């Protein structure tokens, strides 16, 4: 009897020692951490780190601790490609997440295909990642331009727009979003006409040549893909002319996020309907509150940025897939990701087994004034999820 107990004790101790000696699971991540993309990359990385801290507190993945290896992608696809190769060959990471620009996402997907390492694209929206350039090891947990375009077309129909001005930035995201909108528009707003299409340059700050053209075109609504700083510049230059008084501005590119509302504050115009991945003040899932509280503590602000949720969800998917596969082998993890459903702060998500695209939705709604706040808030915020 004593003997068995002792043997059992030895067994337990040995098992414990084995668990402690197991090497950590390495998760590699690339976001832009310097330059123009850092505004998005830094909060996304904060969400990424939060997820890893949470998982490690619960004992890691498959009983192994997680080691996070974080690098700057410099918003440059060739640099991202080299850095990702380095993560795989030198640091021997088990999976790679991240990216922001579409070109960086495509470059990372290419490395993932060559090296047979799973890559989860957490922000890039280029539709090609999950269509023409799709392969076994690439997955996407952010929205794509077809989904965003579909919702914008639906909103154009819902708001009964008849004469539409179309504004897109002249680069990959803008061009792909335009295709997505034009594909869906006949379905939702068969009578609507696009009377004017303008394509300012990526990074443009002077919209004065464009604003009068839109005002003179007599459209009752604008479909816009001007994101972040482009939208801010447009508003600052157009609002004093009374641009937003009569025109409905339906916008992709997450200008409904708190980051933009907080930046523009009182200057945020009327008649804007836009989207965001996450809102710190609005939940569609019970788990959101806990996530938001932890994030607020980590970032030391109540008004947390939406990008953190994307970094967080990417890690949660990686962890769930490894647990399901009971392995970190790329082939098994890739198979596990196909059709995998997990609970996230924005509700339950499923990755389609064929397209490798998660059915992540976005909050859409009008940006309204609040008497007790210096900034606008989205109200009512409707969570629109692709079928």
């Amino acid at each position, binding site marked *: 009897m004593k003997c068995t107990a002792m043997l059992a004790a030895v067994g337990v101790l040995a098992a414990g020692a084995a668990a402690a000696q197991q090497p950590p699971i390495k998760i590699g991540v690339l976001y832009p951490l310097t330059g123009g993309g850092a505004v998005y990359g830094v909060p996304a990385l904060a969400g990424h780190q939060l997820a890893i801290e949470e998982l490690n507190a619960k004992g890691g993945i498959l009983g192994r601790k997680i080691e996070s290896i974080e690098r700057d992608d410099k918003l440059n696809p060739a640099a991202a490609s080299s850095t990702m*190769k*380095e993560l795989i060959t030198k640091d021997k990471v088990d999976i790679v997440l991240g990216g922001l620009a579409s070109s960086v996402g495509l470059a990372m997907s*290419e490395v993932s295909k060559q090296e047979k390492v799973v890559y989860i694209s957490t922000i890039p929206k*280029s539709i090609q990642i999950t269509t023409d350039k799709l392969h076994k090891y690439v997955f996407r947990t952010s929205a794509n331009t077809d989904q965003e375009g579909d919702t914008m077309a639906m909103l154009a129909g819902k708001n009964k727009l008849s004469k539409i001005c179309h504004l897109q930035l002249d680069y990959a995201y803008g061009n792909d979003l335009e295709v997505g909108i034009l594909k869906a528009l006949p379905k939702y707003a068969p009578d609507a006409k696009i009377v004017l299409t303008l394509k300012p340059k990526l990074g443009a700050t002077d919209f004065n040549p464009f604003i009068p053209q839109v005002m003179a075109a007599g459209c009752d609504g604008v479909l816009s893909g001007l994101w972040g700083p482009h939208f801010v510049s447009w508003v600052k230059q157009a609002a004093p002319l009374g641009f937003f008084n009569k025109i409905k501005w339906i916008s992709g590119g997450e200008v409904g996020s708190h980051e933009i509302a907080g930046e523009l504050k009182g200057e945020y115009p009327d008649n804007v309907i836009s989207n965001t991945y996450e809102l710190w003040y609005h939940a569609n899932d019970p788990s959101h509150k806990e996530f938001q509280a932890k994030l607020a503590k980590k970032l030391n602000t109540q008004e947390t940025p939406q990008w953190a949720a994307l970094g967080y969800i990417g890690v949660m998917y990686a962890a769930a897939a490894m647990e399901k596969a009971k392995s970190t082998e790329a082939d098994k993890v890739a198979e596990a990701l196909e059709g995998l459903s997990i609970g996230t702060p924005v509700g339950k998500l499923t990755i389609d087994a064929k397209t490798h695209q998660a059915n992540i939705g976005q909050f859409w709604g009008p940006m309204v004034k609040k008497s007790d706040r210096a900034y606008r808030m989205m109200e009512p915020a409707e969570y629109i999820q692709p079928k």
Partner: protein
Amino acid sequence: MPQRRHLVASAIVVLLLALLPLAGSRYAVDLTTEVLIYALFALSLNVIIGFTGNISFGHAAYFAIGGYACTILLTTYNWPLAASLPAAVVLAGLVAAVVGYFCVRLTQIYFAMLTLAFAMLVWGVAFKWKAVTGGDDGFTGIKLPAMLAHHVGYFYFTLAVVAVGVAALWVICHSAFGLTLVAIRENAVRAGFIGVDTRRMRWAAFTVAGTFGGLAGALFGMYHRGMYIENAYWTESANVLIMVLLGGIYSFVGPIFGAAALHLLQTFTNQYTPYWPTVLGLILLVIVLALPDGLIGLAARVKARRGRT
């Protein structure tokens, strides 16, 4: 003609590099491949800078043309490598000849600005011609011959091509033509007086630089299995310019050391901090204030001081 000790030293370097894959580190092989490609790129730029004494701010154009042409011919048109690589190099050389025809009419800052303008034109074409180049999505999914698909195979291929390229550049730079270029650099008016057609010589040098820049670009595109518009942007031109300055423009091998030092430094810095631009700024300060003749110049000075004591 090359001295015997130069030939022996080069052969030893190539042999040592050829033994590298035996060390078993995949990472070292990849990193060396990158360094070799940048070394050829920097060396090609130095034909303009070190030998004719003009600064080009647009050398990435020929790198990008070589890279795009080679990868597009391989992938979109299914050409064999034996045809697409030479075609890409010839195309880069031809474009350099056309651009050079206009640029060599100017010198100094005007020359630099014109090279920059043409390079941005190439960038504009790569950006706008989406159907062919993929625009700012980049051109990915390159089809490579099976032999080169493996990283060791590609390393040997790069080593062979770069070795031949460097040897060819050595011969060109040390020929009568190369010495004439140095004469033009030192005093263009005097070179003209002794009967040298300085404009034609500088034009030829510009074309040579573009051709070998295109070769480096083709190697780069195949290595990354993709070309991106960022590779044609002025920042890429600036990067290679810094490599050349860091290594030393008055020595043939200087740019090779500059390329290796800058690329390795950038890679290792990135493992610890994202603030590479700060480090780069400091490097530039040191070059301009303390090392105007680069690492090679520093080595020469250290050697001279040792010799004295």
